């Protein structure tokens, strides 16, 4: 029993699978994004460059480790590990194989808590490294969190109200049982969750905290070597988290279909979400932080409140 659990945590559906997915998703994102821009994308490491994210990760691990003198050393060293761990923990709650590794009533709230913690760790990462670009980046990321967190939370709650459960697994099962996806039932919620996930993942048009042309690399500026590698791994895991979350909340989750294992179904669905995210991020220019904050509060939040009201009135679930 214990062995089985250890296998679950470390291999399947735990860390080994998730790391694999993280690197695979980064590759899909880069390749697809490149194709949208009429480029080739990663090409030479492995077939069609599929091993490029792994190679990048390994290369960064082997690089010199630089710690700026004026930084807060304890926080500076711990934060990369925290940042890589948080999305991993969140992924344990998401029912990837049909049932999650850990599932309990209220794990949606746990997820929201983790996503807030991720942003907090970003803030700490930027603030502790004491560079002027990092500080601006971390303030921006905190401001950004203040604006997308509430619509994001409401978008998670919408399906929960309909499914009468705060457990992700149960919400996914509800969709399977009623054979209807929340994508069709609550389309506004789906749009809002996608937009706020773009902000959470710091992708265009919301890549404000690490706007390359404005503040170098934002909160990541001072990091290099294995710390940067961990941050990049964390980012990839976040990408997996975001796409699997949307897939299981709004696209029906890991429904079994004929003989195809449910894991594969979920992966296909989440890849679709991932492609959607990469396509959307190719279409926009970057907002300024004040434009982003006011836009989120004046458009996204009212829209989401309308969606919740509709759900309460019995429309959409």
């Amino acid at each position: 029993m214990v062995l089985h659990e250890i296998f679950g945590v470390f291999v399947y559906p735990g860390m080994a699978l998730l790391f694999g997915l993280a690197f695979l998703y980064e590759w899909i994102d880069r390749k697809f994004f490149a194709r949208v821009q009429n480029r080739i994308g990663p090409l030479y490491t492995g077939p069609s460059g599929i091993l490029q994210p792994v190679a990048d990760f390994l290369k960064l691990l082997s690089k010199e480790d630089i710690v700026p003198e004026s930084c807060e050393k304890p926080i500076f060293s711990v934060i990369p590990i925290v940042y890589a761990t948080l999305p991993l923990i969140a992924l344990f709650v998401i029912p990837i194989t049909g049932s999650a590794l850990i599932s309990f009533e209220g794990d949606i709230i746990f997820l929201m808590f983790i996503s807030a913690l991720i942003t907090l760790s970003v803030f700490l990462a930027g603030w502790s490294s004491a560079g002027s670009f990092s500080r601006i980046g971390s303030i921006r990321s905190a401001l950004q969190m203040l604006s997308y967190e509430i619509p994001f939370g409401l978008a998670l709650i919408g399906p929960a109200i309909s499914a009468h459960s705060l457990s992700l697994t149960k919400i996914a099962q509800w969709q399977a049982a009623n054979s209807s996806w929340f994508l069709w039932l609550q389309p506004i919620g789906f749009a809002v969750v996608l937009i706020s996930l773009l902000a959470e993942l710091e992708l265009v048009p919301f890549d404000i905290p690490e706007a390359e042309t404005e503040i170098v690399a934002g909160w990541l500026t001072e990091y290099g070597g294995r710390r940067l590698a961990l941050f990049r791994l964390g980012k990839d895991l976040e990408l997996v988290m975001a796409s699997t979350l949307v897939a299981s909340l709004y696209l029906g989750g890991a429904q079994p279909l004929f003989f195809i294992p449910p894991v594969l179904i979920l992966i296909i669905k989440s890849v679709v979400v991932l492609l959607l995210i990469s396509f959307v991020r190719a279409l926009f220019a970057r907002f300024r932080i004040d434009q982003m904050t006011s836009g989120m509060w004046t458009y996204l939040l009212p829209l989401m409140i309308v969606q919740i009201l509709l759900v309460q009135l019995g429309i959409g679930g």
Partner: protein
Amino acid sequence: MSYGTTIKVPFGPQHPALKEPEYFLFEVDGDIVVKVTPRIGYVHRGVEKAFEQETYLHNLYLAERICGICSHAHSTCYTQTVEGLVPLEIPPRAVYIRLIMAELERLHSHSLWVGIAAHEAGFDTLFMYLWRDREMIMDLMEEISGNRVTHAINTIGGVRRDITGEQATKIKKFMDKFEGNVKEYMKVLETEQTFLKRTKDVGILKPRDAIALCAVGPTLRASGIKSDVRADDPYLAYGEIPFNVITHDGCDIYARTIVRCEEMIESANIIKYALDHMPEGKIKVPPPRTIAPNESVGRVEAPRGELIHYARSNGTNKPERYKVRAPTLGNLASVCQTLIGAHVADIPLILAGIDPCFSCMDRVIITKKGE
């Protein structure tokens, strides 16, 4: 919102938004810039002194290397200045070939800039598309002149390579395609809300300030002032070719983008017209080896604005004094004015808005108080 105290934000010499090393010190109050101190000279290369050491023909290649993007504008201006010293009349076909190259260069420089502007605003996809098209122009120039950047097609007394009929049809065909593409991108730029939000009413340069601070080129024309060396003081064959001087009343980054986009369309038309009306004949006349004492000034509308070269000869085969005034130097004062009151996030866009070319600009300038 004011915090009372200001923070100093350094910008450069190494910064992702600056493609060349130059240093700006911003004093920032909250998120608003209150003071800008530029520090230029990081890429000073002693070009003007080097001009005095070499012969007129060798200097041609030095002039071409002043700028990496408007190399043809510099070499055209150089040949024009030296031909003014002699004075030398160049064959009409050579004039047209120089003009076609100059307009091709304007196309590639402007598409480069619009791409950069999109990139500074975080619009990477459009940046990729524009640079893809720019690459095709570079290939075209490579085919005509033999090199992508330093074309070495100009020589004193004419040009070194002819444009064949085959190349002419190829250029014309490409111009039609390119014009369509630019119109498509303009539609995107005019309607994309995220881009409009970042560029409209950002980096305002009032017409009065623009004149007072000696702005040149597209920066000046985007403030609604009709000024273009090609129209005001026609050189090459610009007097024979009908074209419009594009202006825009927006005075902001958006206006600068649109002015450059429309100039691209205009340039494509100039190229097509020039190819149709190109006279036959010789492409060069032999230049003299030594030049009698004389003085001459050449003016060219480079992609970035008015470019001025000045030369003084002393009867030998080397110039006695050579002076280059690149357009970026004219625009630098205006951009510092424009930056005051801007958001920190808008700095790269505004700075890029003048299409800075710092290595063109860096000359020794000694200004002392009271002089």
